[in-house]
């Protein structure tokens, strides 16, 4: 059963230095508040797993939390580069960052294999491209029935998955709706999981019989953090702050402006700051 904790307690309990951590959310429901808590608690030597590193991993990488990144598309969507990710890969600042790079199809398959308790994922992909030459974890298998060669990659099995969702009920069952990405797969693939939610309610009010619900017993801990996905968004609660994604380009471009922003907006703040950010994006 999921325990209801403060975000600081949940991160302290479940995330350790050196862990393989997946903070997921495909553009929607990105767990920014939890990412900031990892930074405030000075987690180090993490392997960060995420299809789209987005601003949240730009922040963690720039603050020196990660030794390794597993990803499939590392840009600021519709804006340009993730400057802190680039600085780490191109110049080793603030520390060298090893990368394991995939395609979206590969990572989505690898999470699904993890959730299904399989050792690897097979799919039709990486045909004619250079990524398998630089990533030794991309291999091929032959279909035992047709002989077709398929791409194979190891299942993703993070130590911890962290996601944000719209709401939980008092028993700790969690509802996600809208663009649901790979979050269900990530939680089911992981050894432990933290879910931040907009609110806890008496009844989930799930839309129809086939809603995306994670039962309480699949989740380690839940923390209530209204606005916790800002500047990403929570469908039905607040909109994506596209203007902040544009502003981030200038903030993160230089090391000094990045560190100053992180000091003021992350180190000296707590998760409660997210409520007012999100209210402004409603």
């Amino acid at each position, binding site marked *: 059963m999921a325990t209801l904790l403060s975000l600081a307690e949940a991160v302290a309990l479940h995330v350790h230095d050196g862990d393989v951590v997946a903070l997921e959310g*495909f*553009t*929607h429901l990105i767990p920014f508040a939890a990412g900031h808590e990892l930074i405030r608690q000075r987690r180090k030597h993490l392997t960060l797993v995420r*299809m*789209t590193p987005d601003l949240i991993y730009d922040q963690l990488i720039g603050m020196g939390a990660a030794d390794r990144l597993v*990803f*499939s*598309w*590392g*840009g600021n*969507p*519709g*804006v340009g*580069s*993730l400057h802190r*990710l*680039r600085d780490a*890969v*191109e110049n080793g600042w603030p520390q060298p960052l090893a990368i394991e*790079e995939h*395609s*979206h*199809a590969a990572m*989505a*398959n690898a*999470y*699904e294999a993890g959730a299904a308790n399989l050792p690897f994922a097979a*799919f*039709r*992909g*990486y*045909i*004619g*491209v*250079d*990524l398998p030459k*630089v990533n030794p974890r991309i291999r091929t298998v032959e279909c035992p029935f047709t002989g*077709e*060669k398929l791409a194979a990659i190891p299942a993703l099995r993070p130590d911890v998955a962290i996601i944000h969702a719209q709401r939980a009920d008092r028993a700790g069952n969690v509802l996600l709706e*809208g*663009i*649901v*990405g*790979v979050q*269900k*797969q990530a939680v089911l693939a992981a050894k432990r999981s933290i879910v931040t939610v907009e609110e806890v309610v008496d009844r989930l009010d799930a839309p129809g019989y086939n809603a*995306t619900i994670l039962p309480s017993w699949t989740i380690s801990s839940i923390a209530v953090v209204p606005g916790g996905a800002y500047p990403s*968004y929570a*469908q039905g609660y607040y*909109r*994506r*702050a*596209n*203007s*902040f*994604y*544009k502003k981030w380009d200038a903030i993160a471009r230089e090391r000094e402006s990045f560190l100053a922003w992180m000091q003021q907006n992350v180190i000296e703040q707590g998760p409660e700051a997210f409520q007012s*950010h999100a209210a*402004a*994006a409603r």
Partner: protein
Amino acid sequence: MINPQAFTPNEIMTVAAARALRNSDVCFVGIGAPSAACNLARLTHAPGITLIYESGTIGTRPQVLPLSIGDGELCETALTTVSVPEMFRYWLQGGRITVGFLGGAQIDRYANLNTTVVGPYDKPKVRLPGGGGAPEIASSCGEVFITMTMSSRTFVERLPFITSFGHGAGGASREALGLSTKGPTRVMTDLCVLEPAADTRELTVVSLHPGITREAVQAQCGWPLRFADELIETTPPTAEELRVLRELQDRTDRAHREEA
């Protein structure tokens, strides 16, 4: 009144790209220039087109262009939204997409794309975002359209990295890898439209935009270009196409400004 003679290079690129799409297409939409073209097609000659974004939104009809592939607008106006593993497994790998619409940082004469690195992979001069959905879009969609602004830095003799496979080294490169999909069939730029030659698969200029010379196109391309024997002039945008495109872009700018 809109003067159809007065359009920007970017506008004719978007219009030419939109015209390539058919009403019956099921189109996997890349972000940026492809997204503008696909929605222009939907708002003009192809109202029945099914637009799919990799975030899982199927049959989406956004009123403003999304900044990311996962803006709420896409989900709110979609017929349905599926998970990302389902999107890549059942819909893309399942062979249900007729056209993949891609952009890219760099392209070569066989329409292979690089969006990964400039310089060596282990010590990159410029680290680009990477492949995302593109490697499998390029192999699994029935055909691929590409739209990119031309310059000698983006249309290059030799790619440092192949992120998405086009026609490989030309000829029957796709068939040799067991691919039965067509790969890139058309490239729409700000200066011209290119298509692969039937035999060699080398990109060939088939249409020059109004007022653009062969020399002007060659000046923005890093390899010696081939021009089709029956080279034509691109039909200029109509007043209606320009009106719809500008209104779409105005709505988009307004929406993105209004947010916190």
